């Protein structure tokens, strides 16, 4: 399973506020459409730390990084790529 798919599974299983929302796609807005709340966002950041051993500093918790599952996957890939700080 790709990292992006793992994130998608976590978001669908754990974070979505509307339980009828299981058809979530990679490009569906998470924040703008209020599919997750602030606690969900913090749990997602904790998940990235636990699962992939990355630290997310406050100044990288930005809309452009956490807009949807695809941007989160891209952000994670950037953190995990060789040479990333």
């Amino acid at each position, binding site marked *: 399973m790709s990292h992006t798919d793992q994130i998608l599974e976590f978001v669908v299983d754990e974070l979505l506020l509307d339980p009828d929302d299981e058809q979530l796609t990679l490009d569906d807005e998470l924040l703008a459409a209020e599919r997750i709340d602030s606690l969900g*966002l913090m749990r997602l950041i904790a998940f990235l730390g636990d699962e992939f051993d990355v*630290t997310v500093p406050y100044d990288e918790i930005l809309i452009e990084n956490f807009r949807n599952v695809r941007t989160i996957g891209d952000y994670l890939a950037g953190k995990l790529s060789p040479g990333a700080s």
Partner: protein
Amino acid sequence: MLLVEQLRRAAEADGAKPAFRCGGVDLRYRELVDRADRLAAALRDRGVGPGDRVGILQGKSLENPVAVFGILAAGAAYVPLDPAAPVARLASIVADCGIANVVTEPARASKAAKLAANAGGLVLHGIEADDAEGQAAVTAVSWDEVASHEPLGADSPSVGQDAPAYVIFTSGSTGTPKGIVHTHRSGSAYATMAAELYGLTTDDRLSNFPPLHFDQSTFDLFSATLVGATTVIIDGEHQLVPASLARLIEDERLTIWYSVPLALIQLLLYGVLDERDHSSLRWVVYGGEPFPLKHLESLMAHWPRARFSNCYGPAETNQCTYHHLGPGPAAVRRLDGGVPIGVACPDVELVVVDADDRPVVDGDDGQLLVSGPTTMRGYWGRPDLDDRCFVDVTVDRDVTADRHGDADRDGDGVGRGTVRRYYRTGDLVRRRTDGLLEFLGRADRQVKRRGLRIELDEVEAVLADHEAVEEVAVAAIPAPPEPPAGVGAPAPAPAAGPNPDGGDLTIAAWVSTRPGAFVDADGLRRHAATRLTRPAIPTAISFVDRFPRTTTGKIDYPALTATRSRATA
């Protein structure tokens, strides 16, 4: 002045000026009036007129002011519907208010359609019928169709100053939400007062942070349009992401901020403020709950040029007191205890009374009563509640000086022995020797979580409705913020409130079940979720065989909460 007339005047003065901005897009005064007048015409075509109510089911967007002013231009009152509330709760509001039309948006189409089905039919404005895919047939009036109407403009129906302008629903202690009715008179009195108190001008750029169903949203909607200022609507994404919000405040050069303390605490803790230039801010206004002093002091150090204003007032009265602080954090260090709620706003009369509604002397605790032009007309369709919350008090000049040493400032002749109608706030206060009011707590069982009012009696009433429940008790317990495991990053969202650390509240329930009946905690939470807004749903549910009792046979709440504290310690 009618609220929509304020907007028309501002548009005549400078129609090209942005009235609202969201996501970097401008809505100019001229465009807003035009779009509102077309919506008013579309609503009139559907039979809406003076005396009617129209719902708004929207997240934060530029469509908010179009909906608000369009409904007002049609002569009707708007009723904000919380997009996060359960459909059944919204349906009860729709039925209570006799709402037949709702202004919504594509992102809420599915919920709007469910609401329409539940309510036995509604006309939904602002979406295409296709937007509500998978839902039963809906009657939709798209924005394109709205735009094809000739603007109502001069044909806008005339309503009186005492006609309802908006109805805001809040937690009711019996298990049913209650609607607070504000008129054009009370709404515009508040806008005028806020504009005066914070010296608003056309150059100001205000934040609009609270959702429409939260009374704080009227501060910027109506005071900014009164003076012709620009309001920046903070969308859902920026509400969730503090570092992006901090960037937005800088980019938009906001001059006035208004929100609950929680939003400011999140900015302080996670917004990386050191990297931002927020020197444009001249007023930071907060209300809804106390601001923990350590966070307030830190924020004032980050924003040394801004003055801070603690404003107090239930949704029923709008803001009725204020206490200004700063600029600079030294003001907080000089405080003895918390920030006072201060003194009465202009034209507001306050009196502190004992249990028999007799004014107390300064220094004694009592309930705060409020009278003034910004007070609501009453609760929607609830004369029984009006009878209980309004009280005629014989005021005595010595104890009702609206400002310290400033008796009968307005020369209205209110003096010794005058009878005046007051609203009971249910809040306990004390007037200090320096004339400033201190907030002490609630006279009843209402608590605030993330700025939202929760009646614990309502939570109990909803849980007690479950068929398996025999008896139930609900309490709010301070919950310290717990950082999620495994990250060097933020703790979960802190919430200001009675918890001095700025921690959240846990809504805890204790339940006994009927013999032979069964329900588990998840089942009870699912039941609660059909009637209550999310912050009110108990997160901790304990099952008990019997309740601790006081000597009079009542449930002993302190004994119950003590068991919870021990269990979680």
